């Protein structure tokens, strides 16, 4: 019995972990091998785990023959725009909600909560109709506005939650010493919140970078596509090698996955992240 728990249990756990790692990593492995696979060779009835003649053709193709570099640039612009506007728009409000005493605060918090409970797919319906009326369907600016409808509320919650953890004595002491509220915000709260600001910003960036639904409805022209919309079009037709999609997927997801995996130690709690990864 003692031998079993000394060696048997760990051995079983290793078997389980190995099986889990195969389950977890197989799709990633599959995309990598597909990216290096030439032409149509993936469309085969028999299993082949590694291409016989690996090639970089897929990468060359997507980089030179389709507007993939342009999609990358669009995605970058839209994600950075959402991130910056989300932070700037929410930081002072989050501070007020964390520190000020005012009438209607409870109401504001419940309202924010209600908005967060409104699923973005459902919100997309009126947003689409409104943007259509003002002629912004098809424009990247309209898409940033749509993303902001999620970003502002998310950033406000997240930052308020972090500001709440900063001891009140710090800024209250500063106020007693004659600091203005604005000085307390700029000189005490913001510098102490740099990690939270960075994590919130990156989560916002990732959300916009990985968003398909809104972008697929609000962008109409191939030249304004973000990466997810462009990639969707690359995999829907069996005349097009799936390798193009695989190669593009690698290029867009490896950096953000590295970012996510590197950052996950800093997530205050998994809950904050779980709420935003769509």
């Amino acid at each position, binding site marked *: 019995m003692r031998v079993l728990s000394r060696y048997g249990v760990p051995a079983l756990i290793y078997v389980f972990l190995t099986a889990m790692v195969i389950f977890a990593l197989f799709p990633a492995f*599959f995309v990598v091998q597909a990216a290096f696979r030439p032409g149509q060779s993936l469309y085969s009835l028999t299993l082949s785990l590694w291409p016989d003649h690996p090639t970089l053709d897929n990468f060359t193709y997507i980089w030179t023959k389709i507007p993939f570099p342009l999609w990358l640039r669009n995605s970058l612009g839209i994600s950075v725009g959402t991130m910056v506007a989300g932070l700037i728009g929410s930081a002072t409000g989050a501070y007020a909600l964390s520190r000020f005493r005012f009438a209607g605060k409870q109401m504001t918090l419940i309202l924010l*909560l209600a908005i967060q409970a409104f699923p973005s797919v459902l919100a997309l*319906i009126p947003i689409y109709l409104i943007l259509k009326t003002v002629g912004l369907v098809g424009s990247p600016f309209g898409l940033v506005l749509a993303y902001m409808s999620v970003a502002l509320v998310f950033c406000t919650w997240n930052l308020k939650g972090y500001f709440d953890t900063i001891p009140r004595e710090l800024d209250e002491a500063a106020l007693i010493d004659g600091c203005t509220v604005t000085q307390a915000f700029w000189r005490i709260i913001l510098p102490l919140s740099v990690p939270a600001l960075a994590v919130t910003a990156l989560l916002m960036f990732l959300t916009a970078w*990985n968003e398909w639904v809104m972008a697929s409805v609000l962008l109409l022209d191939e030249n304004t596509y973000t990466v997810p919309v462009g990639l969707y079009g690359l995999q829907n037709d069996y005349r097009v090698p799936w390798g193009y999609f695989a190669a593009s997927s690698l290029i867009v*997801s490896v950096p953000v996955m590295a970012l996510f995996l590197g950052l996950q130690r800093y997530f205050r709690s998994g809950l904050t992240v779980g709420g935003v990864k769509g």
Partner: protein
Amino acid sequence: MYRVRALTTIAYLSPMIVGVGLISLYPIAYNVFISVTNQNLFHFRRYSFVGLANYQSLLKTLDADFFIVLARTFLFVAICIPLFLGLGLLAALALNHPAIRFKAFWRVALIVPWAVPSYITALVWKFFFNGEFGTFNQLYRLVAGPQAGLPWLTDPNWAFGSIVLANLWMSYPFFMVVILGALQSIPSELYEAAAIDGAAAWSKFRRITVPLLRPAILPATVLSAILTFNTLNTAFLITAGGPFTSAAKPGATELVMVYAFREAFQLFNFGYIAAFAVVIFAMLFAVTLGSLRFTGLVREEAR
């Protein structure tokens, strides 16, 4: 908490309030407005008020689309959550076992699915499930012969199971991370004391681990249930809601958000789907508020 001049409060709040008001709140109000009109593809600009007709057609009979889609989504959540939780718990317990070496490696490898953008997850699994070229049927043919194939996405029940599988892959790491964090915060003295008292492994798990994990698992489960209820990418991108057995009925994997997306942006029934959105939102908001009371998902907001 301090009092500041009203003007300061307004100045600090206004960017957020104006922004949220214009781009979050106004669309929601506008959605309620559309829900009492007949706006659709044929009445896009010249729509008229129809009162509560959309709500009536939504809820008129028990076999209306609304109830079919809702029941199916509840079933989906009810199947998914125990699987996510179970696999996440097993993985966390394995990673937390004192005899396991190279923990950092195992941990990062097992979190990878969480880091993959969900639309890519969906499109890759869609390829796995493909009847001819899909990896699963390629594997199946190795054992069952060259003509064989499983109906991963073509049979209604199989398609539903396939969606569950893809979501399991994507979602267990969240539970694993939450539970692992909670496991690591359990003081080892508790287990040592129990060992001295002669407790067996199972009773240590039952009496120490499970009760101390509960505060972490409960809010994570509520949050994950809401996110799973809202599944769109990993259903729509894999099956587009299908397979469809009848033109008049929702497809076998048409979850709530898939249905909303299709009705709005493929069939353009704006008025009808806006009413649908109002009802779904009312349910989700009730769940959110209710869960706050008993899980502390967002703590001390009432203060």
